[in-house]
């Protein structure tokens, strides 16, 4: 098992270099000149040239990429073109906020979506199933940022039950951390809850009519055991796929909700970096995303092995 994990982690290293090459190439293709933006509108040609020299933009493409890779090897992602802050520092400040938001949303997806999917899937055609299906259709149609704004208007400004912004670090106060995160995390989780409910509903429907479920019932097992042990373990394979994809979706969706709720997480950092053409920061964020997505894929694959003995054998 640890051998598999080790090999997979080693494989992400060449992946990171490949992605860094693509990000670097894309940055080269983007029109415009960061030096002009930094220097401001009234800057002289000499001033712009000076900034270019400082940023290293005048060097050949190869030298610039070499510098990027050299930094990467040492764990150095460079310095922001604007704030002069180290990219790694900027990421480490922003990351806990985004992880808190996406993590809490993922928790909502799991604790709400799975019971809903189980209820609908074990009673197909029932009133409950039809209500959940209808609500799910609404959930798909409503984008997270729109729900976020709606929640702010109703529960934040209208009823005044929840704060409408300001991130409180977990270390400072876990309860206030949660209190401030509930609205954005709920808005972010909605689409995922719907996706998980629908997926689990259909895979549970299939599993409940399988021969092995009939066997489990014939053995006199309790209905609870039949559903939660025999049917769910088989129905969980597509569920895990969806959850793995949700990690990516939640991280992407966090960008919009961080802006709506005024959190300065990775998403907000990314938006600012793109607007300012702050290439080192963009590179850092993309590479960080690669690491996070690779890790979630690894977890999904490990879960497959646990759920499906045939996969493990290979």
């Amino acid at each position, binding site marked *: 098992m640890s051998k598999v994990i080790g090999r997979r982690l080693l494989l992400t290293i060449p992946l990171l270099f490949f992605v860094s090459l693509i990000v670097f190439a894309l940055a080269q293709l983007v029109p415009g000149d960061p030096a002009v933006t930094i220097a401001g509108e009234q800057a002289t040609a000499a001033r712009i040239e000076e900034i270019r020299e400082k940023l290293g933009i005048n060097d050949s493409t190869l030298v610039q990429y070499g510098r990027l890779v050299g930094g990467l090897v040492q764990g150095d992602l460079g310095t922001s073109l604007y704030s002069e802050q180290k990219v790694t520092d900027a990421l480490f400040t922003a990351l806990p906020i985004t992880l808190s938001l996406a993590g809490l949303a993922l928790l909502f997806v799991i604790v709400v979506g799975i019971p809903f999917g189980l209820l609908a899937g074990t009673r197909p055609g029932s009133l409950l199933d039809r209500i959940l299906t209808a609500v799910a259709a609404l959930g798909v149609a409503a984008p997270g940022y729109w729900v976020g704004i709606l929640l702010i208007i109703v529960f934040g400004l209208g009823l005044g039950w929840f704060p409408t912004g300001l991130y409180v670090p977990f270390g400072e106060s876990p309860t206030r951390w949660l209190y401030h995160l509930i609205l954005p995390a709920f808005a972010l989780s909605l689409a995922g809850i719907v996706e998980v409910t629908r997926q689990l509903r259909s895979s549970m429907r299939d599993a409940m009519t399988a021969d092995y479920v009939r066997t489990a019932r014939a053995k006199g097992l309790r209905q609870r055991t039949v559903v939660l042990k025999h049917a769910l*373990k088989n129905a969980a394979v597509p569920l895990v796929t969806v959850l793995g994809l949700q990690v990516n979706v939640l991280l992407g969706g966090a960008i919009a909700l961080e802006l709506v709720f005024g959190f300065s997480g990775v998403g907000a950092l990314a938006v600012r970096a793109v607007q300012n053409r702050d290439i080192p920061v963009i590179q850092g964020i993309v590479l960080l995303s690669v690491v996070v997505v690779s890790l979630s894929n690894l977890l999904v694959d490990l879960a497959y092995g646990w759920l499906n*003995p045939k996969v493990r054998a290979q």
Partner: protein
Amino acid sequence: MSEPPLLEVTDLDVDFATDHGWERVVNHVSFTVDRGETLGLVGESGSGKSVTCMALTALIPMPPGRVAGGSVRLEGRELIGMPAAELEQVRGAEVANIFQEPMTSLNPAFTVGEQIAEMVRRHKGLSRRAARGRAVEMLDRVGIPNASRRAEEYPHQFSGGMRQRVMIAMAVSCEPKLLIADEPTTALDVTIQAQVLDLLRDMQAELGMSVVFITHDLGVVAHSCDHVVVLYGGRVMEEAPIDELYFRPAHPYTEGLLTAMPQIGPRAGRLASIPGSTPVPSSLPAGCVFNPRCPYVVERCREGEIPLVEVGPGHRSRCVRVSELNLVGTS
């Protein structure tokens, strides 16, 4: 007063919901199974034999299925309408099932040892460790080599015949009074079939259980059963002790089934078959349900409900012409 038979099924009706309302797939089926006895339930696909047996312990999917009437008594206790929690205690512990498809009837996500052990834990209240020991013991008893190691393996690591052995080990692990074997050998190679049938017979002798053997294969019936019930279109057509049925069949359908059995030896020639196919529940003919395929059909076969009549000791037939016909059995 004499002890009630182990299983007494009386006038069992089972319906399935369709687009045109309820359709009756099992119609007033009655039979009894005595202690230690093996009953054969014979019929073509669609005759209602599997549904009948699954309805006994409410294993048919409900909905779309429903038990519309009748009674199923196990040692005098009524199973129809029994609360779900109570019925769970009967399933596996008193009435166990073996299904036709060994490939899909075991859960692919759990080891075979666990699948046996969880049942023993449930019904016998054994500890995890003791239940595992029992699982290995059962696997060993059904002739699986290296039982202790094999118990840790998953169903996909077993062949079809071995999986059916696992199913048998599981079914008898709680020493049920009644084993319902639904075409347990149909999906297996011919060479493996005999082994599995022998194993079932040995297990039955060891544990003294009764067996209901569902099959379309009269050869299997001859090998295993004491008593036979022939089903057609959801109705009992004939019921007889095994020798009676083979040598003195009292229903044209039974005769057809017997003639359709492949013969070896001087008589072997073209295989006989019954023309036509089993009726669908939605368009059953009036009168005797077998009349469209019956070579002896006359006008009165096409009207009214045909009664099941006694033609000998323990021998009943649902044919109006039974006394006039001279039906041929096996010789």
